[in-house]
């Protein structure tokens, strides 16, 4: 059972009995869509291969047979058209959940997100809105090479008007996807694909472990939501704060375990708007901070976090904030583990920060 699930879920759990099930992240996301399509006839889902077949990662499996061709359908291979169609539908009051097959392929649709979806409310002064949810599997660790491994989240964190979310486990994935669908704002929802089938601690060689054995692999079958904008301290500690999201949350935890360092690990969950309060509380306590992202270093989201933390917690900081990131290169295929910021890089960073 998740232990720190926030007020929202807690309050739900007071008045209804939850049937818990073991779910991997794919099942949890599918369950979120299923719950929402069941309760709200305006929720529809589409994308490349996302209809009949249920998505190349099967996140939308069985939705077409359950809810019909017009509520879960295949889209032509044109990401701009998919985004534009979703905006038009949302403007009419539907709640489209559009899948981008790999986040690497979101770029042909970026203009519709940056110039349209994000600004429709603003430029029309609230007359029209586009509360689309864009789902996109991201990140490496599956030998996908440079076009199936990107973590482009920072691009979206620069776009006023969209919220950006990335869960790190099935329980959060479901609760946050439901929150995203219920949000009045557009949400770019990144799914770390390396975590779809099991937790991953960054040891490339190891056997795939299962969400079934992980506390956050227990997921209520019913509807629940987690608040967008709230981070979670997933490991308490006093020596250093590690701020991470997605796959690296698990890697950071494992690295702290492995090194036996009393690190506090924050799972950010929402990148925009990020939970500065939780971050500042922790850094003010530990006085040391590491920010992590899988994307290339320069101008990644870790830079935003570092910039803000040094401003917010300057006088508490006892060492420079370290960034643990991918390199400023495309994601290589054969040497993907030399690129991926694994536990050793976290340990090095912790040592550097602690020795400073």
């Amino acid at each position: 059972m998740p232990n720190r699930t926030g007020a929202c879920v807690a309050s739900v759990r007071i008045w209804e009995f939850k049937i818990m099930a073991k779910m991997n992240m794919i099942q949890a996301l599918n369950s979120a869509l299923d719950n929402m399509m069941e309760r709200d006839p305006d929720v529809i889902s589409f994308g490349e291969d996302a209809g009949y077949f249920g998505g190349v990662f099967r996140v939308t499996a069985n939705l077409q047979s359950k809810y019909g061709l017009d509520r879960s359908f295949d889209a032509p291979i044109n990401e701009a058209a998919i985004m534009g169609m979703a905006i038009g539908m949302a403007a009419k009051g539907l709640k489209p959940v559009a899948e981008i097959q790999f986040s690497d392929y979101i770029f042909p649709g970026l203009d519709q997100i940056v110039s349209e979806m994000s600004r429709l409310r603003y430029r029309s002064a609230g007359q029209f809105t586009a509360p689309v949810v864009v789902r996109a599997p991201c990140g490496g660790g599956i030998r996908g090479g440079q076009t199936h491994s990107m973590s482009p989240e920072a691009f979206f964190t620069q776009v006023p008007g969209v919220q950006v979310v990335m869960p790190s486990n099935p329980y959060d994935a479901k609760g946050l996807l439901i929150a995203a669908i219920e949000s009045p704002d557009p949400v770019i929802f990144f799914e770390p694909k390396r975590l779809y089938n099991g937790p991953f601690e960054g040891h490339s060689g190891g056997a795939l472990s299962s969400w079934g054995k992980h506390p956050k692999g227990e997921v209520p079958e019913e509807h629940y939501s987690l608040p967008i904008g709230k981070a979670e301290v997933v490991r308490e500690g006093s020596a250093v704060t590690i701020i991470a999201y997605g796959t690296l949350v698990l890697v950071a935890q494992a690295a702290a375990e492995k090194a036996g360092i009393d690190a506090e690990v924050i799972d950010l969950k929402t990148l925009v708007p990020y939970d500065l309060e939780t971050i500042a509380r922790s850094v003010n306590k530990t006085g040391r901070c590491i920010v992590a992202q899988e994307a290339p270093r320069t101008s990644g989201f870790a830079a935003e976090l570092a910039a803000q933390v040094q401003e917010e917690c300057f006088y508490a900081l006892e060492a420079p904030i370290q960034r643990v990131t991918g390199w400023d290169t495309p994601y290589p295929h054969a040497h993907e583990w030399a690129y991926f910021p694994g536990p050793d890089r976290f340990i090095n960073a912790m040592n550097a920060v602690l020795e400073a």
Partner: protein
Amino acid sequence: MAHTEPRFHVPAPHVRPGDTPDFSHIAIPPAGEAKRPATDVAGMETRDLALGLVRVLDHNHQAVGEWDPKLDPDVLREGLRHMVLTRVYDDRMLKLQRQGKMSFYMKSTGEEAVAVAGAMAMQKSDMVFPSYRQQGILFARGRDIVDMMCHCISNSRDNLKGRQLPVHYTWAEGNFFSISGNLATQLPQAVGYAMACEYRGDGEIAATWIGDGSTAEGDFHGALVLASTYRAPVIVNVVNNQWAISTFQGIAAGDAPTFAYKGMGYGLASLRIDGNDFLAVYAATKWAAERARAGHGATVIEHFTYRADAHSTSDDPSGYRPKGENEIWPLGDPVERLKQHLIGLGEWDEERHAALEKELNEMVIASYKEAESHGTLHDGPLSPVESIFEDVYAEPDWRLRRQRQDLGV
């Protein structure tokens, strides 16, 4: 230094500044010739219409042929009024822009029929996704002119809170979508909206407008793929006014025979029509709207017209095309043609026309006075400064709240 012959083909217009305007290369078929198929015709059967030119008003300004929508004179007079108002409004706004009253303006001179007749042939509950050159729709749908002006001068009553460039209107109440400065983006949105209409089953449809130059964008293609795949009830209007900014239609068209014909590649019903002919625009739009509403899918309509004035107030066409082209444009002027048609019908005369122009002129001048009473861009009042932090999200997050504090508002 320049090669005399370019090493690859780069299309160029027939004439350039200094040359004599000349449209003799444009073939204009006689009015009344085009067949009007049933509205459930297969898209592929519209080939002749995609290559031809639907015209209703002939050189004597009489309505001829199958496409004559046989409108009541009251409707014609209403259309004339909206078109004259569009022109009067555009002219006045240009003057005011030159006087520094607004930052920017874009006229639709010569293209009034495209917007006005298009809007009149649809239902007011149908959503329109225009580009920045269909202000005629707003008049046809009865938007308050003072409101329009308040937007253009970005004052305290601007319904867009000063956030948008002038002419980038939004009017949800009138089912007029938010105009984007980014070309072609509205097209897949219109298709999505149209699909949502079917999903809702409310009998509404959508229409969108795009310029000749903008058809080159990927979103044009994406929208037609969607429209064809899902048979969406949408009308895609290509306003071929011969020019993008300084580039003529040949840069977007290449060797394509017509812009309408592009619709054929998607199996969509496709019509090329005389965009300066109120009756042709009305009839084609009516046809496409009926087709869409009956579930037979989308129509591409190329409006063959001419941008009679500059692209915008930032543009001076004398740098790239001969002066006076608009006067010899073979399809004439849409206002003049509808006026003469009505006169020919005995339903209008020069005096009434002069009176109409005078009335609308005065109304526009008076409206501007009223608009200015709500402020101007330079002297205010504007929307409150703090409003720049609103509507980014449904609720401002901590970043926006802090930033508002930083600005001290």
